């Protein structure tokens, strides 16, 4: 399974890229050989996606050189890079749902194909070449994710692509579909096409990649043939230190019931009931779209939900809006920091003070000094890195932005803290600080409901986890004593019922 060719198709030298407040890539160098499958692994925020977006022309690099197929790449657009034989297949797939398979493969090139008949005939040929039997006349909206991926691959082949980048292609495939994809990948390699395969599933990397590059915090840490990596070495290099230190110890003082939720029912959720204890971190585990976010939004009053009951300290509370929830002592960190959490053009101060307007107004009038006090207190308490409380919050890095949202709620000292993807897209160091804060909140007698798509995070932070599958709670586990596979089985809906 060694590389078929030895010449280099893509050569990246010392490429750097910064966004305001973030160094996304720092002197990244990488060579991809012709006819190999090159795996790139790294945690969220390691810079994988940024690098790929520079290759495909979505972003422009700040410094460095890229040579693709003997040609220096400067200021390309996605269209140009496609034309030059570099295709990228995004996780969220870029197809027009309302058009047919054939039309999607040759989108915008019907004339070159001599009309629709030629378009469909040529698309059929390409699909056959990768063993895909989907009719070219079917609407893309009717296809499964795996079939859509094949259409994307056919589209890439139609441009005579020499390099195809696949960004986490396996994240929504079943095991069987994955086998199909591996077959296609192997076949493409035999045809001399190079593939960059981005994933954080190590099994896949060890299964069919030839060469592996590890990225972390915008740097390339190492590039070696797969056979020279051990699994542990790969993990250590991805995370940057021994994994034991990645999470603080779980909160120790779990007490009596603080909140009880009884029978949330919506068109997506079915009979959601659970209890939350004082001093506890409760994790919700499930696939994206399983209903985790809907559960917490219902509790927080963010969506219109009727008929359920929320009891805090045994007394029923009526939560019809986030404002009610806030007054009942519930804080909420939404999953999308920029769209749902912050008012980006506003100052750090007014973003922090947003939930406590009543505390800095007297008789309806704003007292500037009180507001400034709130901002400065939280910035200091959470060590937010900002030149002053007056700068727009949009200028801060992701981790510091997230701290501002945490600070907003700490100001009103909620007893129940809902955190939906609290560490999404923030760097490893800031993550640890957020974990420490979570621990502190719990140790102070508060309770946290934690949702995260990063399984290790939920399993290592939570005292207890609930698995959610298709809008139902399918299990309750102690993550310390339960094998991960059991939890995943319940989260994937493979076996119903509580243990």
């Amino acid at each position, binding site marked *: 399974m060694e590389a078929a060719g030895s010449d280099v198709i893509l050569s990246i030298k010392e490429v750097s890229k910064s966004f305001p407040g973030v160094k996304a890539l720092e002197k990244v160098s990488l060579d991809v050989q012709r006819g190999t499958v090159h795996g790139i692994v790294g945690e969220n925020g390691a810079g994988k996606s940024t690098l790929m977006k520079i290759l495909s022309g979505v972003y422009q690099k700040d410094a460095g050189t890229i040579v693709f197929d003997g040609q220096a790449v400067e200021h390309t657009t996605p269209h140009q890079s496609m034309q030059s034989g570099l295709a990228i297949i995004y996780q969220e797939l870029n197809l027009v749902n309302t058009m047919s398979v054939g039309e999607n493969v040759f989108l915008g090139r019907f004339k070159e194909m001599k009309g629709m008949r030629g378009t469909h005939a040529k698309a059929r040929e390409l699909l056959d070449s990768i063993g895909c039997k989907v009719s070219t006349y079917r609407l893309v909206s009717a296809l499964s994710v795996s079939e859509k991926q094949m259409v994307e691959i056919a589209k890439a082949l139609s441009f005579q692509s020499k390099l195809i980048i696949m960004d986490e292609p396996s994240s929504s495939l079943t095991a069987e579909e994955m086998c199909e994809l591996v077959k296609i990948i192997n076949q493409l390699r035999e045809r001399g096409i190079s593939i960059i395969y981005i994933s954080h599933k190590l099994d896949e990397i060890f299964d069919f990649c030839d060469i592996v590059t590890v990225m972390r915090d915008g740097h390339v840490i190492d590039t070696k043939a797969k056979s020279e990596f051990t699994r542990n070495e790969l993990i250590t290099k991805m995370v940057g230190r021994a994994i034991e230190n990645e999470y603080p110890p779980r909160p120790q003082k779990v007490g009596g019931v603080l909140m009880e939720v009884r029978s949330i029912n919506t068109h997506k959720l079915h009979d959601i009931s659970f209890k939350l204890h004082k001093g506890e971190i409760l994790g919700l585990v499930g696939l994206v779209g399983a209903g985790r976010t809907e559960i917490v939004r219902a509790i*927080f009053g*963010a969506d219109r939900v009727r008929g359920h009951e929320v009891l805090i300290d045994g007394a029923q509370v009526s939560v019809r*809006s*986030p*404002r009610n*929830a*806030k*007054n009942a002592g519930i804080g*909420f960190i*939404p999953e999308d920091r920029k*769209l*749902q*959490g*912050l*008012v*980006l*053009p*506003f100052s750090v101060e*007014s973003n922090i003070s*947003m*939930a406590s*307007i*009543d505390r800095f*107004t007297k008789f*309806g*009038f*704003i007292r500037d000094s009180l507001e400034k006090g709130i901002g400065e207190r939280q910035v200091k308490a959470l060590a937010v890195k900002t*030149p*002053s409380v*007056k*700068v727009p919050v949009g200028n801060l890095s992701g981790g510091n932005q997230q701290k501002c949202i945490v600070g*907003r709620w700490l100001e009103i000292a909620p007893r129940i803290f809902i955190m939906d993807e609290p560490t999404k897209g923030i760097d490893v160091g800031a993550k640890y600080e957020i974990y420490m804060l979570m621990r502190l909140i719990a140790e102070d007698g508060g309770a946290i409901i934690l949702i995260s798509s990063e399984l290790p995070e939920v399993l290592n932070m939570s005292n207890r986890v609930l698995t959610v599958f298709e809008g139902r709670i399918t299990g309750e586990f102690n993550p310390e004593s339960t094998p991960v596979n059991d939890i995943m089985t319940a989260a994937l809906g493979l076996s119903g019922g509580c243990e």
Partner: protein
Amino acid sequence: MSSYGSRSALAVVGAVLRDYLVLAMIAALAAITAMVEPKFMSAANMVNIMRQFGPLIMVSLGMTFVIIGGFIDLSVAGTINLVAVVTISLIQPMGQVPALVTGLAIGAACGALNSAVILSSGALTQAEALFLTFGMSTVYSAFALLYSHGSTMHFWDIKTSKSIFESIGGGTVGPLSVSFAIFLVVLALLWVFQSKTKEGREICLTGGNKTAAALAGVRIKRAIVVIYTIGGFMAAVGAIVLFSRITTAAPVIGAGYETNAILAVVVGGTTLKGGKGSVLRTVMGVLLVILMSNCLNLLGVSTYLQVAVKGAILVFAIWLDNRKQA
């Protein structure tokens, strides 16, 4: 509005210039016109400018709140039509003060109705609000036509006292016209409301990011009701100032005020994206719009071309605003 700290001197000059481009434009416009046409500086023309200023500034101040709140209100033209014909018709049967109060109440009610339509339909984007309020505008205008049977009403037909309206139209307090004095009082109140009160802050947060504001417990529905009610109320004030000055009220009297008000707000530097802006900026915007048409009139530019110039300035202001955000 923005902090200029920690940037190079050149960048600061550039930023100040962009922020206060309107002021520079006003000064340049006045200077050029004064040179070309000496009549511009005459006392008569100054009074003329002050008078034109009255109705538009009232409507624009209200519009500023709607736009800061992240929405837009095209219904002010219809509101002005309705308030004008109803108020003038009530002076004789009800007396001046009840007519005045009724007029203002109708304006506020029209605004509140807009917000009720928007909230109940869940049309919480600016684009949806644009079409909804456009629809409401035609409804209000139709009521104005039905109520007045399409005819224009005149002051000289009113047999009872109309002294309040006459002094709004042409009276003076000290060196100022009454309408200008009203403007100063209203401006002061609205400025304090916008920048110093809890409601004002909630409006800014709603305009900055509705979703985030709601999830932080900000009362965004209330903010939406408040901005539209202020918008409708100020349109009514504008309507009263307007018909008092021209002493007649036709049911189409408000035509064009919605676009001119939006133009003035945006040119003043309040962003259409919501969240940021100020009633003070709107004063500058209105000044520019009025001065511009005054200058173009004095210079003898055709009305058709004037409309084109206005459109171009609106496009330029939005373009500049978008560049600033990027």
